[in-house]
């Protein structure tokens, strides 16, 4: 089943890396990119986003802020926070928002594991 994944990262390079893994592992999925939390929130309204991959470290608002905004609108959407900084505090906050944590640099294996969990969750939710 085709899913639409939103990738939010202020670094274009980082978005390209995620996208290349997605193209390889989930060739039929659609990828939507946002360079920041503001743009991401705009895209959420019209694009039929299923899954969000959000960089933690962004100017203005961090990824956890965006995740909590998304959580307010959609309690079920699978979200992953991407960060090189596996700090307990960030992990705990992600857990609280029912978001997964995927460590940067992103490995195909780790992203694939998250995506399988995410599809499971979507299926569970009847989506």
């Amino acid at each position, binding site marked *: 089943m085709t899913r639409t994944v939103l990738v939010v990262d202020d670094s274009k390079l980082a978005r390209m890396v995620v996208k290349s893994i997605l193209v390889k592992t989930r060739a039929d999925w659609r990828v939507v990119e946002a360079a920041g939390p503001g743009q991401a929130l705009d895209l959420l309204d019209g694009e039929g986003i299923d899954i969000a991959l959000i960089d933690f470290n962004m100017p203005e608002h961090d990824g956890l802020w965006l995740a909590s905004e998304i959580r307010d609108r959609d309690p079920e959407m699978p979200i992953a926070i991407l960060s090189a900084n596996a700090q307990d505090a960030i992990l705990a906050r992600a857990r609280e928002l029912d978001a997964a944590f995927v460590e940067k640099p992103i490995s195909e294996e780790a992203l694939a594991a998250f995506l*399988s*969990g995410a*599809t*499971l969750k979507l*299926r569970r939710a009847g989506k």
Partner: protein
Amino acid sequence: MTVRLSDRVIVLEGDCPVDEAEALLDLLLANPNAPVDWTACRQLHSSLVQVLLAARPAMRGVPESSFLQRWIVPIVQGS
């Protein structure tokens, strides 16, 4: 499919990912006395291990991976 029923034996093959746990559970519920053959299993997601532990079917063969052999076989087949 890495989980299937073949001649009244439930077969686990290759890398069995998380979403196969439901398939395994359904097979075990539908075939309560069917043994599980995991000879060709290379990886078993925790979700499938927990289904095996809850159902305690008769196990056949020894899986390929050394982790499964050394650690999971004794637990799944233990008393």
